[in-house]
């Protein structure tokens, strides 16, 4: 699967000029509200028409302004999970699920995969229910099942969890993780919530003012200090890989990184399990010497690999610790006082509480093979 997008559109005062590509795995479109994320995926789905440019999915041209091609929505075979579920109110849950089956080009998914999907999504008990009686989380799971049962080549998800509380999000996120791990259809996932990125993103596209400002492997994009401002100083942070080493009696779990141990609040994952976690730039403290007499348990030896001085008082410092990359956000004054230089050895201190369970994702074994 390869999606190539290069489109332009003027919508009132808002201009969209986006170039992006997406392949197997999950591509996360991240950006503030109003940055054009939804417009962009609506154009991929065919719900909105760009004024110029080209969209191709593998060897199918979905849209081409010069060739005057604009495939109608229903022929694109691109599934869409909307923020507001959009279940058909006049149909039962079961008939909502089966709505797409009668139009599937390669025939319906088959009874086994249908029942598997219903089982995994935990919506078996809802089949005969009417949609108005469902909770937000249930609606979204049915919407996801409905989109998947139409057997799409690509699945678009527009902030599917935005309207849900934390508990309901946890009803759906594990399923999306599983879908990603088990080779479901490639997904383009729109969000403005960084915590979903650690769980889902293979590729990350940062959308800003109608442009795809940066795109690449999620780890790379997030580790680049140049992108801190783009992502937002609150949200900036890098992704680290690790393996669960042990669970201690005092409620902490130890995660083995390439260059040390990280102690974090108890993670619900078995020992030996690969995890990916997000460490926010503002949660990293730098120390010139090995820290002693500190309350923090987590000190990682690192090397400064980049310094990005922006227009504000903050400075983003890129670090390499073993094979992992970290970003620290320090003040310009600290930079001067510490005389930080590229290549310098340093200690990065991370507070345990900066890594709540939500920031740690159980990595899927197939992620690297699919990237």
């Amino acid at each position, binding site marked *: 699967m390869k999606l190539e997008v290069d489109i332009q559109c003027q919508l009132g005062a808002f201009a969209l000029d986006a170039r992006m590509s997406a392949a197997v795995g999950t591509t996360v479109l991240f950006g503030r509200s109003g940055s054009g994320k939804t417009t962009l995926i609506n154009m991929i*789905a*065919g*719900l909105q028409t760009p004024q110029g440019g080209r969209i191709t999915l593998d060897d199918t041209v979905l849209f081409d302004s010069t060739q005057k091609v604009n495939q*109608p*929505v*229903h*022929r694109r*075979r*691109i*599934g*869409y999970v*909307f923020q*507001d579920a*959009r*279940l*058909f*109110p*006049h149909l039962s849950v079961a008939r909502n699920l089966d*709505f*797409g089956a009668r*139009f*599937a*080009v390669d025939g319906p998914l088959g009874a086994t995969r249908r029942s598997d999907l219903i089982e995994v999504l935990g919506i078996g008990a809802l089949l005969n229910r*009417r*949609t*108005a*009686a469902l909770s937000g989380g249930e609606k979204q799971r049915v919407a996801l099942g*409905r*989109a998947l049962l*139409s057997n799409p080549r690509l699945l678009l998800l527009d902030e599917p969890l935005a309207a849900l509380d934390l508990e309901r999000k946890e009803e759906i996120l594990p399923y999306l993780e599983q879908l990603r791990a088990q080779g479901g259809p490639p997904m383009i996932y729109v969000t403005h919530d960084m915590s979903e990125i650690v769980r889902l993103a293979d590729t990350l596209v940062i959308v800003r003012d109608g442009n795809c400002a940066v795109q690449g492997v999620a780890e790379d994009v997030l580790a680049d200090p140049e992108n801190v401002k783009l992502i937002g100083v609150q949200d900036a942070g890098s992704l680290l890989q690790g393996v669960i080493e042990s669970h201690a009696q005092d409620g902490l779990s130890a995660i083995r990184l390439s260059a040390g141990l990280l102690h974090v609040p108890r993670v619900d994952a078995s020992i030996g399990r690969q995890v990916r976690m997000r460490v926010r730039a503002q949660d990293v403290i730098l120390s010139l010497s090995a820290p002693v007499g500190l309350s923090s348990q987590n000190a990682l030896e690192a090397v400064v690999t980049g310094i990005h001085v922006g227009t504000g008082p903050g400075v983003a410092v890129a670090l390499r610790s073993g094979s992992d990359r970290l970003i620290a956000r320090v003040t310009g004054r600290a930079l001067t006082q510490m005389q930080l230089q590229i290549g310098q050895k340093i200690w990065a201190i991370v507070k345990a509480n900066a890594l709540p369970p939500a920031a740690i994702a159980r990595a899927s074994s197939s992620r690297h093979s699919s990237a």
Partner: protein
Amino acid sequence: MSLTAAEITIVALSLKVAVTATLLSLPIAIFVAWLLARCTFKGKALLNIAVHLPLVLPPVVTGYALLLLFGKQGAIGAMLFDVFGITLAFRWSGAALAAAVMGFPLMVRAIRLGFEAVDRKLEEAAATLGAPRMAVFWHVTLPLISPGILAGTVLGFAKAMGEFGATITFVASIPGQTETLPSAIYTLLQVPGGESAALRLILLSVAISIAALAISEALVRRAATRVSGA
């Protein structure tokens, strides 16, 4: 109260006229309502006015216009007779035509409101699931506007049952042919001593109206519940 043969004829004819008028104009009303609610085209304002004319014109004028157009010498009437051998003027089919024309604006208005109330996002969702436009219309739009269609049908039927002015102008009031309930009541009231017979027909027409209203209320409520997802 048992009905006389004449009364049965009148009621049966009225029902036949009203049912025919409603059923035949329903698909056209849905189409026109769709045009007005969903499409932009040249002459849309004109179509809108044309549809609403029977609502604002004196019925007798509409009846006369029908006579001019669909009478034996009328532009359309002559053609219908030459090509299909169909005569409308002074026939029950003409009464049905008059009833349909008079009820049409009411049907279109109710159905159009239904179209405008449909959440277009649901139609988009259907398209992303692979449904072509016609399938979206059949499986999503039409069920969702079913309360509007029902309401429009009931209004059209009620109008057809009660239609008098245009009918009597276009097809007169010929017993067994074009004498519907309202025209029979009117005729009886013109005759000295006809009041008691008229009263029987009036009671009949009240009963039919109340029954139709009750049935339609129940149907509309059921349809509305259905499309609300509850």
